[in-house]
């Protein structure tokens, strides 16, 4: 087996040699004196790292070498859609004209508004929605926004008894969390053969239901083919159907949430539209709605005006969900990405994402209990510990899948290769899966051995939290 992906490793044996930002190596305390402010308004001193620029540069380059990114190797984290991020999108988001203050007048920021408007239009087209807001700064913020829109809709109808949001047991954790933050009780319904159990759904929804949140394909990668029946049940109960866009990559150009009966959806542009995840953000979580809900969109919204674009407050707006207008630089990248692909590229994306998942699964010696799946699948490590197997995959030079979730699969390995991996890479990934799955438990339990750090003690990190260098000094 040939593995081409490995991190640069620097200091296996003596990992404390080079950490200049840690305080004992580099800190300096400066007294606060000779300030134009009187003493009673100022602090006494400030202590921070103090390095020359060359030292600083080396420090961060070293840290980058201790970080695995999409350009380091395959990253098949299920539901995260870790696809290739084209550098050109980064470049177009760095032009000087992009850097404007959010309090600039609409008249003086016609370029920014034009781009936002075009992106709204693209996303509406892709999602089959009537209008899209770009304000939410991440997917979960989009969920929260969507639920607040549902709440405003019910309130406008004088419908005050709707206190519950229903989610399937396969839902991402953000769905119930967003519903709870918005003040709703969460009702979880079980799946039947990996899909929504229609009887359970029917029993769960009614006069108290504010929304049903679903992703399709769901987190098992399985398409909810009863989606029309689901939409009917939910709509009959008087509730909007919410689409979690985490798995939209599987559907691009082939199925649109709006056409499936969804009323509200969020897009994860950092997943579907190839903008980088940045180690966990910034993302952007635009929200699309059908026509009945447009008047509730966050403030402000971009629309066309005479010969240009303007910002306005929708009639019954929920108000704001971000201090300004969201993660603008991420939105430029998403626009560039969609424009680069066009319709054919979007279709090719969903085709190859689904083909790659199916091909990779076909090469594995592991069981995949729920089929057919689309762009991701959940394999079972069976009698092995999924986390151990994942750690061993790190030694084999690849990033492992999402482990131990969803918990309806024993020792789950939730795998999403995405469209940007070649057959050759998928074969290497399959080798890593199969090699690890064949190995003795001892080897798995002691893995990883070839990474920057060996297996990290999570328990003591949580039991004895040390969250800053100040805490290390204690």
């Amino acid at each position, binding site marked *: 087996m040939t593995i081409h992906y490995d991190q640069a490793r620097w200091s296996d044996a003596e990992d404390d040699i080079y950490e200049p930002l840690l305080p004992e190596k580099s800190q300096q305390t400066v007294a606060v004196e000779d300030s134009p402010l009187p003493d009673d308004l100022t602090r006494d001193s400030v202590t921070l790292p103090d390095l020359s620029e060359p030292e600083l540069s080396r420090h961060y380059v070293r840290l980058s070498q201790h970080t695995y990114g999409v350009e380091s190797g395959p990253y098949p984290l299920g539901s995260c859609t870790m696809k290739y991020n084209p550098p050109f999108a980064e470049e177009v988001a760095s032009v000087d004209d992009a850097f404007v203050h959010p309090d600039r007048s609409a008249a003086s920021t016609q370029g920014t508004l034009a781009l936002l408007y075009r992106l709204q239009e693209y996303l509406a087209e892709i999602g089959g929605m009537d209008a899209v807001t770009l304000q939410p700064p991440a997917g979960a913020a989009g969920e929260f926004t969507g639920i607040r829109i549902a709440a405003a809709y019910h309130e406008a109808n004088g419908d005050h008894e709707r206190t519950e949001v229903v989610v399937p047991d396969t839902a991402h954790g953000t769905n119930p969390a967003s519903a709870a933050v918005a003040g709703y009780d969460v009702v979880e319904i079980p799946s039947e053969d990996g899909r929504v159990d229609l009887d359970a759904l029917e029993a769960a929804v009614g006069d108290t239901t504010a929304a049903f949140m679903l992703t399709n394909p769901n987190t098992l990668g399985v398409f909810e083919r009863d989606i029309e029946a689901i939409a009917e049940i939910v709509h009959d109960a008087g509730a909007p159907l919410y689409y979690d866009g985490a798995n939209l990559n599987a559907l691009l150009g082939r199925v649109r949430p709006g056409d499936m009966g969804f009323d509200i959806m969020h897009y994860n542009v950092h997943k579907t539209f190839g903008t980088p995840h940045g*180690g966990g953000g910034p993302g952007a979580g635009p929200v699309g709605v059908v026509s009945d809900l447009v008047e509730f969109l966050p403030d402000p919204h971009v629309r066309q005006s005479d010969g240009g674009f303007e910002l306005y407050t929708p009639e019954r707006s929920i108000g704001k969900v971000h201090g300004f207008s969201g993660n603008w630089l991420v939105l430029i990248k998403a626009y560039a990405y969609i424009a680069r692909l066009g319709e054919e590229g979007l279709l090719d994306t969903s085709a190859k994402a689904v083909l790659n998942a199916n091909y990779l699964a076909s090469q594995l010696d592991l069981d995949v209990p729920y089929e057919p799946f689309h762009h991701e699948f959940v394999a079972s490590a069976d009698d092995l510990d999924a986390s151990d197997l994942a750690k061993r995959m790190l030694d084999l030079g690849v990033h492992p899948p999402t482990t131990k979730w969803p918990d309806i699969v024993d020792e789950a390995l939730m795998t999403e290769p995405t469209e940007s991996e070649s057959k050759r890479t998928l074969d290497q990934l399959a080798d890593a899966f199969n090699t690890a799955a064949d190995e003795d438990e001892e080897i798995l339990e002691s893995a990883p051995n070839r990474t920057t750090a*060996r297996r990290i003690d999570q328990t003591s990190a949580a039991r004895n939290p040390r969250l800053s260098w100040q805490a290390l000094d204690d």
Partner: protein
Amino acid sequence: MTGSPYVPHSAEETAAMLEAVGVDDVTELFDVPDPVRFEGDLDIDARSEPEIRTEIDALLSRNDDLTEFLGRGHYDHYVPSVVDRISARSEFLTSYTQYQPEVAQGFLQALFEYQSMLVELTGLPVANASMYDAATALGEAALFASRVRETSGSTVLVPEYVRDERVSVLENYGAGADITVERVPSAKGTVDTSALMGAANEDTLAVYAENPTTRGTIEPDLDAIGDVAHDNDALFVLGSDPVALSLLERPSDVGADVVVGDASVLGMPTSYGMGLGMFATREDFLRQVPGRLVGASEDDAGFRAFTLTLQTREQHIRRERATSNICTNQAWVALRTAMHVAALGPEGLLETANRMVSLASDVAERLDEIIGVRAPVDDRHHFREFVAHTDQPARAIVDDLAAQGFAIHAVGEHEVQVCVTETNEGSIDDFIAAFREVAQ
């Protein structure tokens, strides 16, 4: 173009893969009932890289080229080139949340360093690895207060000077927990402590103040604000930013229980409001903190290592009982902020902060000399920005200045707000000259 430029499959590979999975055409893999299949055409044309560059350049060049003297919560500080260069390394930019810490030590250490810098600047021992922006961090702080406050209470008191946008976000976050927001009158652009005392009672959940304030004023008596909060068993939530915190009173010294604010004032140029929510608090509230935390631990070989920790608070484990719904945060912005702080060092940061005091007072003084202008309106010390009274309607002043190439805020019928940092410092003379022309 016949497909995505980011799909690497050759025709032969595709054929081999289709054969391996046992289908003739990839559409057979889509288990979708016919009625919901999309048969239309998406009205999106593919363009080449140069075409898109040209298009976006042309689009964004429609933005007027104005020298911004704008602030009010979103500030432009010069970002050293080393930050742009090093943060753009693809390992940082294209990695995911650090669920496999053994191959994410670099990013984890960078976030740990970011947390550490906030701990030093706020004096509070726990800082999370980021929220979206100042407004959402404030919303999270209100929900946090409702979890940790010992007695019931549902009102968050905010000073009149807080931006409406920030209050609107706070109201959206608070709505689900039946939290209401009440505005308390300001005096001289800072909190009127006697009005605050009158407004606070057993229903007060949290008292929020900013230092510096949205109007650029420096609060003269934060201790008194904290005392009002604590006398009513409420949390004292303080809004600030890392530049100001290097100079102004340490939040822990004035009784702040939570510090929120926008940390992207370092690390990011003005990006149409894209931010980095800062959140720091006391140790005894640790288990109720929203968002990600990076902790130090050890690996099997006994060496120090970093990992995400206390994840049982988070949505992916605790679901509807999580302390927050946040998942994707602003990690890469936090990385840039940490780089920027480290690049400045303590002297550079403090020097920048002192400069913000001098610049605001110098420019206010110069505007004050113009007939028809009084600056600053508030009899307070200022940081970066100040409010000026204009005899002419504020709207007209703003429009006339825009025609001369400058952007400032209108904040009242006859009040404008001006913000100065090192990035517009070089244009001050021209700005004053233009102001003189339009103010009379």
